[in-house]
């Protein structure tokens, strides 16, 4: 049980953060608007969770210009992919052990 909880990542406790990681785990990259529409959350809410995940080194942000409009695109890092899949495994373990 202790081992399972060790993999249970605090950074993913919020639903929005889990959502961001799920989407970025299966997509090479997604921009802010895409994430907002997929997860149906507000700008401020999404931005703060994205910042937290970025600071933890789980996702990376890339700013660019598309037709002179600024575009912010997010993708998962290797570290993020690894932590997210151990978190998923921990979740599944917890359910199985009940």
């Amino acid at each position: 049980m202790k081992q399972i909880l060790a993999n249970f990542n605090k950074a993913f406790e919020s639903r929005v953060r889990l959502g961001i990681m799920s989407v970025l785990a299966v997509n090479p990259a997604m921009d802010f608007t895409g994430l907002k529409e997929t997860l149906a959350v507000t700008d401020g809410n999404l931005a703060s969770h994205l910042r937290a995940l970025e600071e933890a080194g789980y996702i990376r942000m890339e700013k660019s210009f598309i037709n002179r409009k600024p575009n912010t695109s997010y993708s998962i890092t290797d570290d993020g992919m690894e932590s997210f899949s151990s978190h998923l495994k921990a979740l599944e373990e917890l359910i199985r052990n009940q």
Partner: protein
Amino acid sequence: MTNQTDQHLEDIQAIRRLMESSSRFLSLSGMSGIIAGVLGIAGALGAQLIITRISAPVDWYARPFAEGPDGIREFLPLFVLMAVVLILAFSGAAFLSTRKARKSGIKAWTPVTRRMLVSLLIPLGTGGLFILLTAGTVPAGVIIASTLIFYGLAVISAGKFTFGEIHWLGVLEVAAGLVCLALPQYSVLIWILGFGLLHIVYGLFMHLRYRG
């Protein structure tokens, strides 16, 4: 503790749903498969009529479509027919899929849709150019077979971005194309079964399974 388990279970379900809906185009309408199949059969029968009308020899399948000085002129109605069938089937799929997306309250035009279309159009466009460039020199039977093979590869490639079942439709299309190569004298019949009937069966299956 039970509450917490429910919470985890909900989390896992939400994660799976998000992974699926953000990486797959799930609005692809089954009905559009049926329409593509019916249009394909109508097109193949039309093509057969055109082929026999241009006083084709019994071994027409072993000769190029556009042979000799009149070749291109004779091939033109066939080419127009193929283009019309393709455009109608494609528009039908686009219209029905947009409607299905609207009904289920999701957007049809997403990054996944774009990725799916690109992976569909690369093999399909290659096939189209291949046929245009070889119609004058390659036997008609091979051309008919290559429509099935390129289309099947396009479906397999686009299938990664939509329902998993479509993968098998692509595999069967490629298989039908290979059979067509081996039995060119039956190429129109194989095309009717391999493209038309398969699409109708696939479309019905998906329509019943995913309602739409």
